[in-house]
Protein backbone atom coordinates (compact mmCIF):
# COMPACT_ATOMS: atom_id res chain seq x y z
CA UNK A 1 0.00 0.00 0.00
CA UNK A 2 1.26 3.50 -0.76
CA UNK A 3 2.98 5.10 2.20
CA UNK A 4 2.49 8.74 3.06
CA UNK A 5 6.11 9.52 2.33
CA UNK A 6 5.58 8.78 -1.36
CA UNK A 7 2.87 11.38 -1.66
CA UNK A 8 5.03 13.83 0.22
CA UNK A 9 7.90 13.21 -2.13
CA UNK A 10 5.69 13.79 -5.15
CA UNK A 11 4.45 16.99 -3.57
CA UNK A 12 8.01 18.10 -2.85
CA UNK A 13 9.06 17.35 -6.41
CA UNK A 14 6.10 19.22 -7.83
CA UNK A 15 6.83 22.12 -5.54
CA UNK A 16 10.43 22.21 -6.68
CA UNK A 17 9.38 22.09 -10.29
CA UNK A 18 6.96 24.94 -9.83
CA UNK A 19 9.62 26.92 -8.01
CA UNK A 20 12.10 26.26 -10.78
CA UNK A 21 9.58 27.45 -13.34
CA UNK A 22 8.85 30.57 -11.34
CA UNK A 23 12.56 31.27 -10.93
CA UNK A 24 13.84 30.57 -14.39
CA UNK A 25 11.17 31.52 -16.89
CA UNK A 26 11.02 35.02 -18.25
CA UNK A 27 7.33 35.26 -18.91
CA UNK A 28 5.16 36.62 -16.13
CA UNK A 29 2.30 34.29 -16.96
CA UNK A 30 4.56 31.30 -16.58
CA UNK A 31 5.75 32.54 -13.24
CA UNK A 32 2.13 32.60 -12.19
CA UNK A 33 1.67 29.08 -13.48
CA UNK A 34 4.67 27.98 -11.48
CA UNK A 35 3.17 29.48 -8.38
CA UNK A 36 -0.05 27.63 -9.09
CA UNK A 37 1.93 24.42 -9.30
CA UNK A 38 3.50 25.13 -5.91
CA UNK A 39 0.09 25.74 -4.42
CA UNK A 40 -1.14 22.47 -5.85
CA UNK A 41 1.76 20.65 -4.33
CA UNK A 42 0.78 22.13 -1.00
CA UNK A 43 -2.79 20.93 -1.57
CA UNK A 44 -1.53 17.44 -2.24
CA UNK A 45 0.29 17.56 1.09
CA UNK A 46 -2.81 18.71 2.86
CA UNK A 47 -4.99 16.00 1.39
CA UNK A 48 -2.41 13.36 2.07
CA UNK A 49 -2.06 14.40 5.68
CA UNK A 50 -5.83 14.48 6.00
CA UNK A 51 -6.08 10.97 4.65
CA UNK A 52 -3.35 9.55 6.82
CA UNK A 53 -4.01 11.72 9.84
CA UNK A 54 -5.50 10.44 13.10
CA UNK A 55 -8.90 12.17 12.66
CA UNK A 56 -10.02 12.13 9.01
CA UNK A 57 -13.62 12.61 10.06
CA UNK A 58 -12.80 16.13 11.21
CA UNK A 59 -12.10 17.01 7.55
CA UNK A 60 -9.51 19.58 8.59
CA UNK A 61 -6.99 18.94 5.82
CA UNK A 62 -9.73 18.56 3.24
CA UNK A 63 -11.24 21.88 4.18
CA UNK A 64 -7.83 23.45 4.12
CA UNK A 65 -7.28 22.15 0.62
CA UNK A 66 -10.67 23.31 -0.62
CA UNK A 67 -10.18 26.77 0.76
CA UNK A 68 -6.70 27.02 -0.65
CA UNK A 69 -8.09 25.99 -4.05
CA UNK A 70 -10.58 28.82 -3.83
CA UNK A 71 -7.90 31.27 -2.79
CA UNK A 72 -5.63 30.06 -5.57
CA UNK A 73 -8.36 30.67 -8.10
CA UNK A 74 -8.78 34.23 -6.85
CA UNK A 75 -5.02 34.70 -6.94
CA UNK A 76 -4.85 33.49 -10.52
CA UNK A 77 -7.63 35.82 -11.61
CA UNK A 78 -6.05 38.89 -10.04
CA UNK A 79 -2.53 37.97 -11.13
CA UNK A 80 -3.49 37.46 -14.74
CA UNK A 81 -5.51 40.64 -14.71
CA UNK A 82 -2.40 42.44 -13.50
CA UNK A 83 -0.30 40.84 -16.17
CA UNK A 84 -2.73 41.93 -18.85
CA UNK A 85 -2.82 45.51 -17.65
CA UNK A 86 0.95 45.57 -17.38
CA UNK A 87 1.11 44.26 -20.92
CA UNK A 88 -1.18 47.03 -22.07
CA UNK A 89 1.07 49.51 -20.34
CA UNK A 90 4.56 48.20 -21.09
CA UNK A 91 3.83 46.11 -24.20
CA UNK A 92 5.64 43.16 -22.67
CA UNK A 93 5.27 40.36 -20.21
CA UNK A 94 9.01 39.84 -19.93
CA UNK A 95 10.01 40.18 -16.32
CA UNK A 96 13.52 41.26 -17.22
CA UNK A 97 12.09 44.41 -18.77
CA UNK A 98 9.53 44.83 -16.04
CA UNK A 99 11.88 46.16 -13.38
CA UNK A 100 10.79 49.77 -13.21
CA UNK A 101 8.38 50.67 -10.45
CA UNK A 102 7.25 53.78 -12.26
CA UNK A 103 6.45 54.52 -15.86
Amino acid at each position, binding site marked *: *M*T*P*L*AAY*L*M*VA*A*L*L*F*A*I*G*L*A*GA*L*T*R*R*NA*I*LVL*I*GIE*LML*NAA*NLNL*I*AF*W*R*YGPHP*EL*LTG*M*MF*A*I*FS*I*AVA*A*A*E*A*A*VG*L*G*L*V*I*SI*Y*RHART*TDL*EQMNRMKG
Partner: protein
Amino acid sequence: MSPIFYLLAAITVAGGLATVLLKNLVHCALAVTIAFLGLALLFLSLDAQFAGFVQILVYIGAVAILVVFAILLTREAEVPESSPAGRVFSKTWLTGLVIAAAVFAMLGWAVLQSAQALPNETAMPAVSVRDIGNALVGRYVLPLEIVALLLTAATIGAVIVAMHEKEAK
Protein backbone atom coordinates in the same frame (compact mmCIF):
# COMPACT_ATOMS: atom_id res chain seq x y z
CA MET B 1 3.38 1.10 -3.60
CA SER B 2 0.63 0.48 -6.10
CA PRO B 3 1.32 0.83 -9.84
CA ILE B 4 -1.60 3.25 -10.11
CA PHE B 5 0.18 5.62 -7.82
CA TYR B 6 3.33 5.40 -9.93
CA LEU B 7 1.30 6.12 -13.02
CA LEU B 8 -0.42 9.16 -11.56
CA ALA B 9 2.77 10.50 -10.04
CA ALA B 10 4.49 10.09 -13.38
CA ILE B 11 1.70 11.92 -15.20
CA THR B 12 1.75 14.75 -12.70
CA VAL B 13 5.49 15.22 -12.66
CA ALA B 14 5.70 14.94 -16.41
CA GLY B 15 3.07 17.60 -16.79
CA GLY B 16 4.92 19.85 -14.40
CA LEU B 17 8.22 19.39 -16.17
CA ALA B 18 6.63 20.01 -19.54
CA THR B 19 5.11 23.17 -18.14
CA VAL B 20 8.46 24.46 -17.10
CA LEU B 21 10.41 23.37 -20.15
CA LEU B 22 8.18 23.89 -23.18
CA LYS B 23 8.77 26.98 -25.29
CA ASN B 24 5.33 27.70 -26.60
CA LEU B 25 3.21 29.20 -23.87
CA VAL B 26 0.03 27.52 -25.02
CA HIS B 27 1.75 24.18 -24.80
CA CYS B 28 2.85 25.13 -21.29
CA ALA B 29 -0.71 25.93 -20.37
CA LEU B 30 -1.95 22.59 -21.70
CA ALA B 31 0.89 20.78 -19.96
CA VAL B 32 -0.03 22.37 -16.66
CA THR B 33 -3.56 21.15 -17.19
CA ILE B 34 -2.17 17.67 -17.43
CA ALA B 35 -0.40 18.22 -14.14
CA PHE B 36 -3.62 19.45 -12.62
CA LEU B 37 -5.45 16.41 -13.90
CA GLY B 38 -2.81 14.15 -12.43
CA LEU B 39 -3.18 15.88 -9.10
CA ALA B 40 -6.93 15.49 -9.23
CA LEU B 41 -6.51 11.79 -9.83
CA LEU B 42 -4.07 11.62 -6.92
CA PHE B 43 -6.72 13.21 -4.76
CA LEU B 44 -9.18 10.58 -5.91
CA SER B 45 -6.70 7.88 -5.07
CA LEU B 46 -6.60 9.43 -1.61
CA ASP B 47 -10.40 8.95 -1.33
CA ALA B 48 -10.87 12.72 -1.55
CA GLN B 49 -13.59 12.53 -4.17
CA PHE B 50 -14.99 15.97 -3.56
CA ALA B 51 -11.60 17.67 -3.54
CA GLY B 52 -10.63 15.87 -6.73
CA PHE B 53 -13.68 16.98 -8.64
CA VAL B 54 -13.40 20.48 -7.31
CA GLN B 55 -9.78 20.44 -8.46
CA ILE B 56 -10.83 19.48 -11.97
CA LEU B 57 -13.69 21.96 -12.03
CA VAL B 58 -11.65 24.89 -10.75
CA TYR B 59 -8.24 24.29 -12.27
CA ILE B 60 -9.00 22.67 -15.58
CA GLY B 61 -12.32 24.38 -16.05
CA ALA B 62 -11.36 27.85 -14.91
CA VAL B 63 -7.72 28.53 -14.16
CA ALA B 64 -6.36 26.83 -17.27
CA ILE B 65 -8.85 28.65 -19.46
CA LEU B 66 -7.94 31.89 -17.71
CA VAL B 67 -4.26 31.31 -18.39
CA VAL B 68 -4.95 30.52 -22.01
CA PHE B 69 -6.97 33.67 -22.40
CA ALA B 70 -4.24 35.70 -20.78
CA ILE B 71 -1.69 34.19 -23.14
CA LEU B 72 -3.76 34.97 -26.19
CA LEU B 73 -4.57 38.47 -24.97
CA THR B 74 -0.90 39.22 -24.46
CA ARG B 75 0.07 37.84 -27.87
CA GLU B 76 2.82 35.81 -26.27
CA ALA B 77 1.98 32.60 -28.08
CA GLU B 78 3.83 33.31 -31.26
CA VAL B 79 7.24 32.05 -30.27
CA PRO B 80 8.97 30.78 -33.38
CA GLU B 81 9.98 27.19 -32.82
CA SER B 82 13.51 28.01 -33.82
CA SER B 83 14.04 30.66 -31.15
CA PRO B 84 17.02 30.24 -28.79
CA ALA B 85 16.39 29.13 -25.24
CA GLY B 86 17.71 32.48 -23.98
CA ARG B 87 14.54 34.10 -25.15
CA VAL B 88 12.51 31.85 -22.91
CA PHE B 89 14.69 31.44 -19.83
CA SER B 90 16.01 34.37 -17.85
CA LYS B 91 19.70 35.21 -17.83
CA THR B 92 20.19 33.93 -14.33
CA TRP B 93 18.32 30.68 -14.91
CA LEU B 94 21.17 28.65 -13.45
CA THR B 95 20.95 30.15 -9.96
CA GLY B 96 17.22 29.70 -10.05
CA LEU B 97 17.63 26.06 -10.94
CA VAL B 98 20.19 25.54 -8.20
CA ILE B 99 17.93 27.12 -5.60
CA ALA B 100 14.96 25.03 -6.71
CA ALA B 101 17.10 21.93 -6.51
CA ALA B 102 18.25 22.93 -3.06
CA VAL B 103 14.67 23.37 -1.93
CA PHE B 104 13.78 19.96 -3.28
CA ALA B 105 16.77 18.40 -1.61
CA MET B 106 15.88 20.01 1.68
CA LEU B 107 12.24 18.94 1.50
CA GLY B 108 13.06 15.46 0.34
CA TRP B 109 15.64 15.07 3.10
CA ALA B 110 13.06 16.28 5.61
CA VAL B 111 10.52 13.74 4.33
CA LEU B 112 12.95 10.90 4.39
CA GLN B 113 14.15 11.88 7.84
CA SER B 114 10.64 11.51 9.19
CA ALA B 115 9.59 8.61 6.96
CA GLN B 116 9.47 6.16 9.85
CA ALA B 117 7.63 8.55 12.12
CA LEU B 118 4.85 9.03 9.59
CA PRO B 119 1.53 7.31 10.34
CA ASN B 120 0.46 4.36 8.24
CA GLU B 121 -2.71 4.27 6.22
CA THR B 122 -5.89 4.00 8.27
CA ALA B 123 -9.24 2.64 7.18
CA MET B 124 -10.90 4.74 4.52
CA PRO B 125 -12.84 7.49 6.27
CA ALA B 126 -16.54 7.45 5.46
CA VAL B 127 -17.04 11.07 4.43
CA SER B 128 -19.97 11.87 2.18
CA VAL B 129 -20.52 15.18 0.40
CA ARG B 130 -23.24 15.81 2.97
CA ASP B 131 -20.62 15.71 5.76
CA ILE B 132 -18.46 18.18 3.86
CA GLY B 133 -21.43 20.45 3.34
CA ASN B 134 -22.35 20.33 7.02
CA ALA B 135 -18.77 21.05 8.00
CA LEU B 136 -18.66 23.97 5.57
CA VAL B 137 -21.74 25.63 6.99
CA GLY B 138 -21.04 24.46 10.51
CA ARG B 139 -17.55 24.31 11.88
CA TYR B 140 -15.92 26.16 8.97
CA VAL B 141 -18.62 28.74 8.29
CA LEU B 142 -16.41 31.69 9.12
CA PRO B 143 -13.66 30.72 6.67
CA LEU B 144 -16.37 30.07 4.13
CA GLU B 145 -17.76 33.57 4.52
CA ILE B 146 -14.28 35.05 4.37
CA VAL B 147 -13.47 33.13 1.20
CA ALA B 148 -16.73 34.33 -0.32
CA LEU B 149 -15.70 37.88 0.49
CA LEU B 150 -12.24 37.27 -0.94
CA LEU B 151 -13.65 35.86 -4.16
CA THR B 152 -15.97 38.80 -4.61
CA ALA B 153 -13.12 41.22 -4.03
CA ALA B 154 -10.90 39.28 -6.42
CA THR B 155 -13.54 39.28 -9.14
CA ILE B 156 -14.10 43.00 -8.87
CA GLY B 157 -10.38 43.66 -8.62
CA ALA B 158 -9.55 41.56 -11.65
CA VAL B 159 -12.24 43.24 -13.71
CA ILE B 160 -11.09 46.70 -12.65
CA VAL B 161 -7.42 45.94 -13.26
CA ALA B 162 -7.90 44.32 -16.63
CA MET B 163 -10.43 46.91 -17.76
CA HIS B 164 -9.40 49.12 -20.65
CA GLU B 165 -8.44 52.44 -19.08
CA LYS B 166 -10.18 55.35 -20.76
CA GLU B 167 -8.11 57.98 -22.57
CA ALA B 168 -10.11 60.67 -20.79
CA LYS B 169 -7.38 62.91 -19.41
